[in-house]
């Protein structure tokens, strides 16, 4: 039948195009099934799973490309071959064919089964972390990350060793977030009120970025954290050695998402630049105008422990958005240290370093 012969002719043509494309891509972009150094579709592969996932991705990609090329090829060919020519009548041709319908339904069914199965198989492997994996607690909140290691150390930077499976226990203090390491191909939503898990085995030392991938408000796009994969376990342990966090680090980890300390810029909260012993305007309540208070030790402590008791009017009418007290989250000495820091950042850091030296001597 005519229909069939044209179909095979098109098929042959499509194969040629496809083969040519495949060769170009193979030579032009390295490996056809993904590349450790990344290529035009995927970023570098920095975990053991990444190579597998890219393999599945490229498997699907080539199938899609095959479909795209032969369908568009046929369409383009018909558009040109059967363009309207004045005076030329439409040729007779059938307008239904059960065998054709079956012929073009079966391959997609089979391919779908294969794609589904591959995705499922690798997903299962990604879902079950090995029992001996290193555990790191990850706490997300608007808009910062906090990591707690097995030795009690806390940090706003993520450190993991190379070639060791690591499980991340994910919790959120407020809304939905998502833990996303693109170069490790790991992503998991973080749901308030639950602990979700993600895991990976990083296999490439270096610096990466952790992203929040679930929309969470104003600074969602700034909710990133630096990630370091350490070549050796010793290097990793050195990086997460517990110790007292410096006041600067405490501020960065807990406060800097809403307050700037070295510029007058107003973020969610007022700038705290030079706040120590300065005069602050706060809401007086009952529709009265603002009143002035002195930002002494007591006031600063109150602001951290009972936010909202006095609402700042520094440059803007702030709402009570610092709505969670830090009493549970920070230890009393950490709060003292922060208050010192707000009173005078430079002196507080000097004091901290002096104490550190004294402790090291002992």
């Amino acid at each position, binding site marked *: 039948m005519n229909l069939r012969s044209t179909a095979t002719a098109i098929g042959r043509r499509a194969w040629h195009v496809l083969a040519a494309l495949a060769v170009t891509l193979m030579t032009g972009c390295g490996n056809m099934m993904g590349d450790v150094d990344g290529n035009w579709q995927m970023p570098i592969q920095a975990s053991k799973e990444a190579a597998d996932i890219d393999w599945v991705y490229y498997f699907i990609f080539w199938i899609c490309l095959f479909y795209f090329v032969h369908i568009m090829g046929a369409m383009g060919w018909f558009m040109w071959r059967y363009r309207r020519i004045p005076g030329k009548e439409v*040729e007779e041709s059938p307008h*239904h064919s059960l065998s054709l319908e079956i012929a073009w*339904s079966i391959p997609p069914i089979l391919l779908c089964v294969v794609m589904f199965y591959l*995705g499922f198989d690798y997903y299962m492997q990604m879902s079950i972390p090995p029992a001996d994996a290193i555990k790191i607690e990850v706490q997300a909140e608007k808009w910062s990350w906090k990591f707690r290691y097995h030795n009690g150390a806390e940090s706003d930077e993520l450190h993991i060793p190379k070639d060791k499976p690591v499980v991340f226990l994910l919790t959120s203090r407020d809304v939905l977030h998502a833990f996303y390491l693109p*170069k490790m191909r790991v992503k998991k939503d973080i749901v*308030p*009120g*639950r602990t979700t898990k993600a895991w990976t085995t990083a296999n490439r030392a270096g610096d990466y970025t952790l992203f929040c991938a679930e929309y969470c408000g104003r600074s969602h796009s700034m909710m990133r954290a630096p990630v370091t994969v350490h070549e050796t376990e010793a290097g990793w342990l050195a990086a997460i050695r517990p110790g007292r966090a410096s006041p600067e680090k405490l501020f960065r980890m807990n406060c800097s998402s809403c307050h700037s300390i070295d510029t007058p810029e107003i973020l969610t909260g007022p700038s705290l630049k030079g706040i120590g012993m300065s005069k602050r305007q706060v809401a007086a309540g009952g529709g009265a105008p603002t009143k002035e208070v002195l930002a002494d030790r007591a006031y600063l402590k109150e602001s951290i422990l009972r936010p909202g008791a006095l609402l700042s009017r520094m440059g803007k009418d702030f*709402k009570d958005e610092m709505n969670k007290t830090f009493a549970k989250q920070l230890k009393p000495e950490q709060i003292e240290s922060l208050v010192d820091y707000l009173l005078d950042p430079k002196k507080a850091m000097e004091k901290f370093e002096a104490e550190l030296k004294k402790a090291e001597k002992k």
Partner: protein
Amino acid sequence: MAENDYLHRTHCIFGWKKETGILSWLLTIDHKRIGIMYFLATFSSFLLAGAFALAFRTKLLWAEPVTWMEPDTYNRLFTLHGAIMVFLFIIPGVPAALGNFVLPIMLGAKDVAFPRLNLFSFYLWLMGAAMSVAAISLGGLDTGWTFYTPYSTEGIRAGVVWMASGVFILGFASIFTGLNFLVTIHKLRPPGMTWFRLPLFVWGLYATAIMQVLATPVLGITVALLLVERIMGVGIFNPELGGDPVLFQHFFWFYSHPAVYIMIVPGFGIVSELISVFSRKHIFGYSFIAFSSVAIALLSFIVWGHHMFTSGQSVLVNTIFSALTFSVAIPTAVKVYNWVATLYKGSISFETPMLYALSFLFLFTIGGLTGFPLATLATDVHLHDTYFVVAHFHYVMMGGLVIAMFGGLHYWWPKMTGRMYPERWGQLSAFLVFVGFNITFFTQFLMGSQGMPRRYYSYSSEFEIYHRISTSGSYILGLGILIMVIYLLWSLKNGEPAPDNPWGAATLEWKTTTPPHFENFETTPTVGDPYDFSDLTYDPQTRGWVDTNASKA
């Protein structure tokens, strides 16, 4: 005689005698006038939401924060863009605007089954639209169009309840339209119009109507639960009260996934008409196209969980949803093959509607194929919530439905307005839209698979180049649409008068006068095969096609 067309005469509600003037439109129960009003309303929403998109795409030219657009503004803009596009334009766009105008005429009926309900549904739409836009702009809603809890229900954002109520009212407008179409198609077919003589656009609207009627009530339940939580403090979605935020996602997608197909299925219908008419060839595999629309409509109810593969939903549930999702691929593939096969041995001409139909095939094929790595569990984990998903659904929604709708708009424009649009300008704008669209969204696939998360106000500088290309593309796309709006408006006064059948189509709407008689037909048309073009010949005098059989008789 010309004075009997629907622009000069109409039936008003409560038997009012008013033929022209603004009130005769606002109170009309003529499906054609209601369709036009729906079109004006939904299309304005489209232009507005498009303008928002251009605004935030301009911000994305720079990776770093900019002083002239705050992150909050950016977040509100993409929320407005998404919510208006989806709820005010895409869902009602084709059924309520084009469908309302065309469906009864295609069937050979005088009107829809319940004309007054039809008008009521339009007013519900207006009410719902006002409510949701007010909720977003006054309530400063910045949650994205998905309104995920608990972010969307945090203290200050009471707006979400209003928004959800607005969407629910919009949903009712859409249920009424759906119900109306179902009854119309079942009951008002004239003698001779058997099920398998229904044009495929009608089949598409039929499948859509089923989904509208069945899915929308879930939205009502969601609103009710949100209200119960807010007013009575019962924990349903809010973890602080012991609720579960993931439950909200289930509810949301249980409605919104069928909604996605509510958006696209009528587009399938339009494209089936266009490809057949402009190839002058009987549509290939009529019953396969018709039934695959119905199959897609039914399957749409059991795949919602594919939006939640990384949400913490159990592995078993993910597996089931992944498998079910793949099943949608088969009817979709069948459709695409049948459309391409229709071109075979045709006599293909490239007027604007056909350019859009062919664009649709190209873009929808990409949109459909890129669904595979998203349906596949292992790869979706990486791609979820990145620009890959953004690109995928724009290829399906905009490249699929909106492009099909532009095609339909140009195709029925002469029938609706009595004027031809300027063909050359139409082709130019179709070309710009196609090129601009691909530049805008194809780059988004690449940055997405590289790991660029969506809904980011500022981003790593490695992606700046992609964003700049994408934004440039969006300007070309915007220009294409601007040109279209201008020449369509121009043609209302200055376009050439349209013949009854400018395209040589065989469906019934082309057998009545242009613009149609206010009761659709003066004489009952004879019903035949909607894709049999053999009796039609071109008449250079009227610049239209005439039925040689009818003139002989």
